[in-house]
């Protein structure tokens, strides 16, 4: 068969294989391998045989993946061309030793395939011929060698990763060697069809294979596998090996049930604690074992059956009971009735220990009952228990006790069986332990009341609620009726004689129907019904089987309930209890229905049970005992009186009667219950069985169930309202919350609950109840691992909290603290609630209608936020953000409130101060930054628009009515508004800055920032700042921080500084430091005297005088202000300067020397003269008096004199004196003053004549020449005899009164003086001019 190899493909393969060899990187190598494999598998056997060595060659590659690939190729070639096995097997054996685990594993994996195929081929060949060719034989022998090699790996300890696959190999071999019960028994008719190989195809006489030998080997290997898991060996295994072995074993057990019996003991004896390997890893193996057992449990093969129980036990121990049930249930479904018998036996087995445990507990009904009583006791929180015992009629006490004991047995059975059925579902957590504890305490009777109380007071209401709920399933169904004044009944609103007295019958009936529709009870009753012979099934179905019994007609429902009980009791073969039922029920209108047959025939023992019932019925009727008739009468009576008459007087008698009646029968009942499981009980119990009616069992749809549950819940809620006075609300609200959250149609119920809470938040203890509900929901949301319920619960939580919060906000006055309290104590605050809070604090975002109230609401919101920040650190940041947002709110009222909170309450908190500061600074800077960027672009525009608007204004004035101008002005307004939009308006700036200012008062160093931004701020912002400063600075006062800022103000902030200083000095004496700082600032940096103005009143006079020239140099208005300051001084120190000093100081200024324009000085003078009430006549006189002594005379002296006369004409005499002194000072020497002198003389004529006449004649002549107007009056004056006589001749000559003897000399002098005069005239002109200008100004 040496064919001619296709040269092309051969070449190709060769090149491929060599390129694999020489390829450099791993990726391309593998790619080439893939290619090679693909091509190789196309080739036929002949070609391949030549090529094999080349592939073996590939294996010498240093990289693991390539070697692995080579192995894979070999394996696939082998599977395809089994004839190569003798060559390939040795190769695979060597590969097993490969250093790289992955390669070795690949070898094992290939071997399995190869082994299976070889075995299959040999087996089938052998079927058809007695001889096999030698090739196959050698193949097989090689395969066996390979197998042995892998075996050795599998069972040799510590061979790591490869061992896992090797073990799998062992499993595969075992499976191959053993017959598959589910496989096809016949080999496929022709070779190559893909039916799974089954060893049973082999028959005797196969040349190579012997079924017996093979199965012996398989079982040997299995033993080896099992040995691995036995005690000493298992210790040395790694977890992964254990897991693989367990999985393999369970797979074998499942696929080859014959081995079930050998594998399971090992698995079962595998002790979980022994899994502690390397100290840690138990879970993996533990879990694998659990799964293995579970899958074994599902095995339906008969040989598996005996093991089931033990597996179940083991699984329960592993806490996988639920799963076990599920598995078992499946089995049952599969096995159907075949297994029924077994189940029954199981049931019996199970029941035995149960009754035993019950006996051992030694508790009677009292225990169970008082357990529940106990829990209701705590609701009442007093010693009702004690009272109740006393309240029981003494006559019946013993009998009831006796009775109780009997019932105990029966009920014990019921409840214990029931609890056993539930045990699987219900975890025995702390709640169950508590229930047990309560039970034990109550069993001790009254002496345990104290410790009960302590126990109760130590348990939280929530836990207590859980206990009550958990204990619900322990409630004996008959219990309510045996004990007529049970507190629990009252709580649950089931009728009791006490409550009957309290409530109108209609309510009673309602309550009864309620109790019958109450799902837990109903489901319990139902499940009990079917307990006896369906226990196992019951276990699996559990509570799902909820046949709620309900009837719209309350009376009927009541009857139905009664019959539920009876049936339940009957079903447990305890007819006695039906008697006991009666007294409690009291009203039982014997509806002549035959429903009792329909009730639970299927659950009873077929045939027997129904006949028994019929017996019971007929017997009772035949006997027509006093009791039953009594009761019938009574109940009929009662039924009629239900409408109006109180049945109270009838009831007690009946119940007492009943108990008396019952007491002698107790013994009988006892015995009957003992033998109740046998048919004889039918007879013995007959007399006590009353006419029975079974309730119509109505299967409700899901919707109806929902409705019923909801209705029940609503009733509970309503009933709670009515008994609120009774106290114990804690437990009740816990129960309500529990029900509201746990019942399935939860959303609706929560709505009901919400409505209940909100309908009267205060009186219904809304806060407590809400919190309970919230905590439940929260717990659910956190607890559930299921995405669905987790998210839903979280959502429900949010809805609930939000709804309550919204209602609290809307319906309560803002001063109410409920909302704050709720939010403070709720377990978690979702985003939506925080949003709500945000809206509350920053109104106007969404709702505008509530503006009127917003003020108070804001306060409410803010105080809530504050308390949240204090109480809930995790959401502090979010809450702070809310408060901060509110602090920059556009409404000032809101803003101020928030700022007060932030600055006064929050800012002092260390942890958040930084954050607040940053936010405030950001807001502050935002104003400036927007401004700065806008301004650079918009400056030109702004000024333009200003011009425009001015223009428009004027045009407006001109033609105010014209529509055109209106349009234009509108345009302008638009441009104005757009402009204000770009740079923040004053209110906007205030909005952003207020918070910062508020913080400044708390931390003065922050104030510096304002100085820094001031320079670059826009006009509006500056305005806003100026508005704030007075308040701010006044609040701050002078601190070292502020001083520091003042001492070095950034450039551009002068105006701000001024305002600050003004504010600082207003009304108070500035501190020496401040004055010092300001002076220093003036001396060093800021030469502007203005900054000194505020402190001028506090400076010493001489310093002020030094500064005077600077002050005079100020703009007039400011100088006037300075003047006032100086003259008024501060309230404390009095005036700094007297008015006279001021005027003198002004006159002391020499314009040239001090560098101050003369105009400024004259203005200053004028300013003084304007204030005549200060610069009075006396002041002026004093000033002039002093000034006149100055040498030289002040420049403005004469000007002032003139002004003085103008202002105070009465001063004229004084002035004359001055003038004459001037004469003596030779005033004419100073041409400027001389002009003024003459002017003054002219002004003050005729008084000035005497002064003029004092002038030396030449000066007089000069004067008269200059002011001609003087001459005539003066001459007239001088002509008077007395004066003329006193005048010297020269004088007279000048006046022209004497003969002109000296005219020449006069002319001479006059000539001599002409130069002077001409000069002085010029000067006068100058003074004149200046005067004019000054007057003009």
């Amino acid at each position: 068969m040496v064919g001619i190899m296709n040269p092309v493909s051969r070449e190709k393969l060769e090149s491929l294989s060599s390129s694999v060899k020489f390829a450099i990187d791993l990726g391309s190598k593998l790619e080439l391998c893939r290619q090679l494999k693909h091509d190789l598998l196309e080739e036929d056997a002949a070609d391949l045989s030549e090529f094999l060595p080349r592939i073996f060659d590939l294996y010498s590659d240093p990289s693991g993946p390539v070697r692995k690939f080579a192995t894979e190729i070999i394996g696939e070639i082998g599977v395809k061309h089994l004839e190569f096995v003798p060559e390939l097997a040795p190769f695979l054996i060597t590969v097993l030793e490969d250093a790289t685990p992955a390669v070795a594993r690949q070898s094992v994996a290939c071997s399995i395939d190869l082994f299976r195929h070889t075995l299959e081929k040999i087996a089938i060949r052998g079927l058809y011929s007695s001889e096999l060719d030698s090739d196959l034989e050698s193949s097989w022998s090689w395969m066996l060698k390979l197998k042995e090699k892998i075996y050795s790996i599998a069972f040799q300890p510590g061979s790591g990763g490869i061992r896992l696959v090797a073990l799998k190999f062992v499993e595969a071999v075992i499976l191959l060697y053993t017959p598959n019960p589910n496989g096809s028994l016949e080999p496929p008719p022709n070779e190559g069809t893909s039916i799974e190989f089954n060893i049973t195809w082999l028959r005797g006489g196969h040349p190579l294979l012997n079924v017996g030998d093979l199965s012996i080997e398989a079982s040997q290997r299995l033993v080896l596998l099992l040995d691995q898991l036995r005690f000493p060996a298992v210790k040395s295994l790694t977890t992964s090996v254990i897991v693989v072995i367990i999985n393999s074993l369970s797979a074998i057990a499942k696929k080859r049930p014959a081995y079930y019996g050998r594998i399971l003991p090992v698995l079962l004896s595998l002790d979980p604690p022994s899994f502690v390997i390397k100290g840690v890893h138990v879970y993996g193996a533990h879990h694998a074992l659990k799964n293995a057992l579970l899958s074994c449990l599902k095995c339906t093969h008969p040989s598996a059956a005996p093991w089931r129980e033990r597996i179940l036990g083991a699984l329960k121990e592993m806490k996988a009971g639920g799963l076990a049930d599920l598995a078992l249930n499946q089995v049952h479904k599969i096995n159907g009735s075949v297994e029924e018998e077994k189940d029954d036996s199981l049931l019996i087995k199970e029941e035995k220990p149960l009754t035993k445990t019950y006996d051992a507990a030694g508790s009677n009904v009292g225990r169970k009952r008082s357990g529940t009583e106990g829990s209701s006791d705590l609701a009442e929180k007093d010693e009702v228990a004690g009272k109740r015992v006393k309240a029981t009629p003494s006559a019946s006490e013993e009998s009831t006790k006796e009775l109780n004991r009997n019932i105990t047995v029966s009920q014990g059975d019921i409840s214990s069986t029931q609890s056993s059925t539930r045990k699987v579902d219900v975890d025995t957590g702390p709640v169950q332990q508590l229930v047990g504890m309560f039970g034990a305490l109550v069993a001790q009777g009254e002496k345990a009341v104290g410790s009960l109380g302590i126990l109760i007071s130590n348990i939280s209401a929530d836990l207590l609620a859980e206990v009550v709920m958990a204990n619900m399933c322990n409630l004996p169904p008959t219990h309510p009726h045996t004990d007529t004044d049970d507190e629990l009944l009252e709580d649950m609103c089931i009728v009791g004689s006490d409550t009957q007295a309290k409530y109108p019958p209609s309510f009673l009936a309602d309550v009864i129907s309620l109790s019958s529709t109450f799902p837990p009870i109903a489901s319990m009753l139902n499940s009990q019904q079917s307990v006896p012979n369906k226990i196992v099934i019951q276990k699996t179905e559990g509570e799902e089987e909820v046949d709620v019994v309900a009837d719209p007609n309350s009376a009927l429902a009541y009857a139905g309930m009664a019959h539920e009980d009876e049936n339940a009791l009957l079903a447990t073969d305890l007819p006695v209890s039906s008697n006991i039922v009666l007294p409690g029920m009291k009203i039982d209108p014997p509806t002549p229905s035959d429903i009792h047959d329909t009730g639970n025939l299927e659950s009873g023992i077929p045939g027997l049970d129904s006949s028994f019932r019929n017996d019971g019925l007929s017997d009772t009727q035949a006997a027509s005992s006093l009791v039953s008739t009594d009761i019938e009468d009574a109940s009929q009576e009662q039924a009629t009186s239900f409408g109006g008459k109180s049945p109270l007087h009838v009831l007690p008698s009946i119940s007492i009667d009943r108990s008396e009646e019952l007491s002698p029968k107790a013994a009988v009942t006892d015995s009957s219950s003992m033998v109740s499981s046998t048919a004889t009980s039918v007879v013995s119990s007959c007399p006590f069985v009353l006419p029975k009616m079974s309730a119509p069992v109505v299967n409700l749809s899901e919707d109806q169930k929902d409705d019923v549950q909801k209705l029940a819940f609503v009733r509970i809620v309503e009933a709670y309202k009515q008994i609120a006075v009774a106290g114990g609300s804690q437990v009740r609200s816990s129960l309500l919350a529990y029900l509201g959250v746990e019942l399935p149609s939860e959303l609706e119920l929560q709505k009901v609950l919400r409505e209940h809470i909100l309908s009267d938040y205060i009186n219904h203890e809304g806060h407590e109840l809400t919190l309970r509900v919230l905590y439940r929901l929260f717990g659910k949301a956190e607890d559930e691992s299921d995405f669905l319920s987790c998210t839903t619960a979280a959502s429900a939580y949010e809805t609930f909290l939000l709804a309550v919060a919204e209602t609290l906000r809307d319906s309560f006055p803002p001063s109410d603290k409920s909302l704050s309290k709720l939010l403070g104590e709720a377990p978690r605050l979702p985003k939506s609630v925080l949003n709500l809070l945000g809206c509350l604090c920053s109104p106007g975002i969404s709702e505008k209608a509530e503006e009127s109230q917003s003020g108070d609401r804001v306060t409410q919101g803010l105080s809530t936020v504050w308390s949240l920040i204090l109480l809930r650190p995790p959401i502090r940041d979010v809450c702070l953000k809310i408060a901060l947002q509110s602090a920059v709110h556009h409404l000032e009222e809101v803003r101020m409130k928030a700022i007060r909170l932030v600055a006064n309450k929050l800012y002092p908190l260390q942890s958040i101060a930084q954050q607040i500061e940053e936010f405030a600074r950001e807001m502050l800077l935002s104003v400036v930054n927007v401004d700065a960027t806008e301004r650079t672009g918009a400056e030109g525009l702004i000024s333009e628009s200003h011009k425009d608007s001015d223009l428009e204004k004027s045009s407006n004035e001109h033609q105010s009515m014209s529509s055109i101008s209106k349009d234009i002005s509108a345009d302008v307004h638009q441009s104005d508004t757009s402009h204000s939009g770009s740079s923040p308006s004053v209110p906007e700036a205030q909005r952003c800055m207020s918070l910062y200012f508020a913080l400044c008062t708390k931390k003065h160093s922050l104030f510096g920032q304002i100085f820094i931004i001031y320079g670059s701020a826009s006009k509006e912002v500056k305005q806003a700042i100026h508005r704030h400063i007075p308040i701010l600075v006044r609040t701050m006062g002078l601190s070292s921080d502020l001083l520091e800022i003042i001492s070095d103000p950034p450039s551009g902030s002068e105006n701000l500084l001024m305002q600050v200083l003004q504010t600082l000095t207003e009304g108070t004496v500035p501190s020496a430091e401040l004055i010092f700082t300001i002076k220093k600032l003036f001396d060093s940096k800021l030469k502007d005297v203005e900054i000194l103005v505020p402190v001028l009143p506090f400076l010493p006079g001489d310093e002020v005088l030094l500064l005077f020239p600077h002050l005079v140099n100020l703009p007039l208005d400011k100088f006037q202000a300075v003047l006032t300051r100086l003259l008024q001084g501060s309230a404390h120190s009095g005036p700094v300067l007297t008015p006279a000093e001021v005027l003198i100081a002004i006159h002391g200024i020499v314009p040239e020397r001090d560098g101050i324009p003369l105009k400024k000085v004259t203005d200053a003078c004028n300013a003084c003269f304007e204030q005549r009430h200060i610069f009075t006549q006396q002041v002026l006189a004093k000033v002039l008096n002093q000034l006149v002594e100055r040498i030289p005379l002040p420049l403005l002296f004469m000007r002032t004199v003139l002004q003085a006369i103008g202002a105070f004409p009465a001063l004229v005499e004084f002035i004359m004196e001055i003038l004459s002194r001037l004469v003596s000072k030779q005033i004419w020497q100073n041409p400027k003053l001389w002009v003024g002198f003459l002017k003054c003389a002219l002004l003050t004529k005729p008084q000035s004549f005497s002064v003029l006449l004092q002038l030396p004649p030449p000066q007089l002549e000069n004067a008269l020449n200059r002011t001609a107007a003087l001459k005539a009056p003066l001459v007239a004056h001088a002509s008077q005899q007395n004066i003329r006589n006193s005048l010297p001749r020269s004088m007279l000559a000048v006046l022209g009164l004497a003969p002109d003897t000296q005219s020449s000399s006069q002319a001479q002098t006059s000539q001599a003086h002409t130069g002077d005069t001409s000069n002085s005239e010029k000067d006068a002109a100058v003074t004149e001019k200046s005067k004019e200008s000054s007057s003009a100004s």
Partner: protein
Amino acid sequence: MKFRYAMVCSSNQNRSMEAHSLLKKQGFDVSSYGTGAHVKLPGPSLREPNVYEFGTPYKHMFDDLRRKDPELYKRNGILPMLKRNLSVKLAPQRWQDNAADGCFDIVFTFEEKVFDMVLEDLHNRDQVLLKSVLVINLEVKDNHEEAAIGARIALDLCEQIEAVESWEDSIDDIMVSFENKHRRKLLYSISFY
């Protein structure tokens, strides 16, 4: 990356997708699956979940829910989650139907129930390749926050597994060191393809 990873949870929405998304970003060869019968997303109440078939594109669910009640689904984080998912892959895939996707080396589950289902499914397949697969269960609560944490932990574990030559030899050590580091219980099993 030498191993192929699969992330499995029940609906292939939250936990598996969170991990898928994260590992994908880190360059892992990763797929994700759900083992449930349907894809269930929370609805207005527990009784009314939104149920989709596997294979329904995330985009479709996203649009559907956004149409139904954008407020609710945004609030409970479903819409953001779907948005994330649709950026990772087209639609949720079911584990039990993934035979065509080839063999995985490491399978992560995030819930014991899912772990069991994956193992059972693997055991029920024909184990012919005898290629071992490591199935690890990392218990993660099914909510958004925990899923994010779980994904990070899974990534950490993947990186450790990636770092060794063959996990078969060192898995126990990896698990021990992991448990010591994260204080989280791991469950693992080995199965074969």
